[in-house]
């Protein structure tokens, strides 16, 4: 694909490689479409300054929206698993921590804040930040479900002392996942280096050059990715005059 960007003299060519299946993308966007209303309607009960919205028939409507969205939110991974179990399991495996993550944590400030490309060791299909996002969302899904379902149907059935714990954990999961969501939103939409992220989640393809840079282990394979990185570090060191 040939693209002419504003402000650049020559056109650039982008080679697209597939990254996300249609179901993966649909699941992601449906997850977003339910997570946001859930967070907002939940926050109406959480923030005292939103108290007027929580009252009376309006409050009951927001609670109803919360429940409808919750059902879809809860069923989504299950439906995903029914249709593409291998893909879901592959993704979950890619989210699990690995040694690359330590390298990512060490290199993240220099890379994301200062743009120093040689500071970041080669990453796999998901880097540590993306893994954190995925794992937090998965854990939050379990916590929301395991607390939310009894909160919905269990009043008068489960002991109030247990119910109080459910509310507390429901809140904690909300705080953690919403903070993660805000960071995710920023990186996906606003950070200049992450431009291909949103493209890949919308269209399923990512630029080969982008993948070579940001997910070198996934692109070149572990051995060659390390070789390329060592070369890049040497080059930067020479330029820096160390």
């Amino acid at each position, binding site marked *: 694909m040939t693209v002419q960007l504003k402000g650049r003299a020559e056109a650039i060519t982008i080679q697209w490689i597939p990254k996300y299946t249609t179901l993966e993308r649909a699941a992601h966007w449906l997850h977003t479409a339910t997570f946001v209303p859930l967070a907002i309607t939940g926050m109406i009960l959480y923030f005292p300054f939103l108290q007027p919205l929580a009252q009376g028939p309006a409050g009951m409507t927001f609670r109803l929206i919360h429940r409808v969205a919750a059902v879809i939110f809860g069923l989504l991974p299950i439906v995903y698993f029914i249709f593409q179990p291998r893909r879901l399991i592959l993704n979950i495996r890619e989210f699990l921590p690995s040694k690359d993550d330590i390298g990512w944590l060490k290199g993240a400030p220099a890379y994301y804040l200062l743009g120093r490309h040689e500071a970041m060791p080669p990453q796999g299909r998901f880097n540590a930040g993306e893994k954190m996002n995925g794992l937090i969302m998965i854990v939050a899904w379990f916590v929301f479900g395991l607390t939310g379902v009894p909160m919905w149907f269990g009043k008068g059935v489960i002991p109030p002392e247990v119910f109080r714990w459910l509310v507390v954990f429901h809140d904690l999961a909300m705080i953690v996942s919403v903070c993660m969501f805000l960071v995710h939103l920023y990186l996906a939409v606003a950070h200049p280096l992450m431009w291909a992220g949103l493209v890949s989640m919308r269209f399923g393809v990512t630029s080969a050059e982008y993948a070579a840079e940001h997910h070198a*282990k*996934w692109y070149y*394979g572990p051995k*060659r990715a390390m070789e390329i990185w060592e070369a890049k570090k040497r080059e930067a060191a020479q330029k820096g005059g160390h």
Partner: protein
Amino acid sequence: MAKILVVDDDPDFVNLTRRILQRKGYEVLTAASGQQALAVMRKEKPDLVLLDIMMSYILDGLDVSREMAQDPALKDVPVIMVTSLTGARAEAASLSGEYVPVDEWIHKPIDPDRLLARIEDALKGKAG
């Protein structure tokens, strides 16, 4: 009949292709990654390799074909590259801009008759 190695990390593709080939009478070996494929090749010496590009990592298939070209035992084995990458560029050069030693390219989703015809041609080319 000839021995064909099908290399792809997608089990559905492997099963489908195996059925097509076995019905024609070919003996079918399989592998799910580049590393596995090279190990099987060195042990079983297939007559032809059907190679997917993106497996354990994006350039996996390309690295395999490159290693085959450099291995005296394997460099004469015909390779048909199977790819879901579209566009003429995929055939002319690789994603990293280097030359890829491959006998044929074929696009997914595969047309069984086309695949069998290409395999026949490649095997004949080898024999003759």
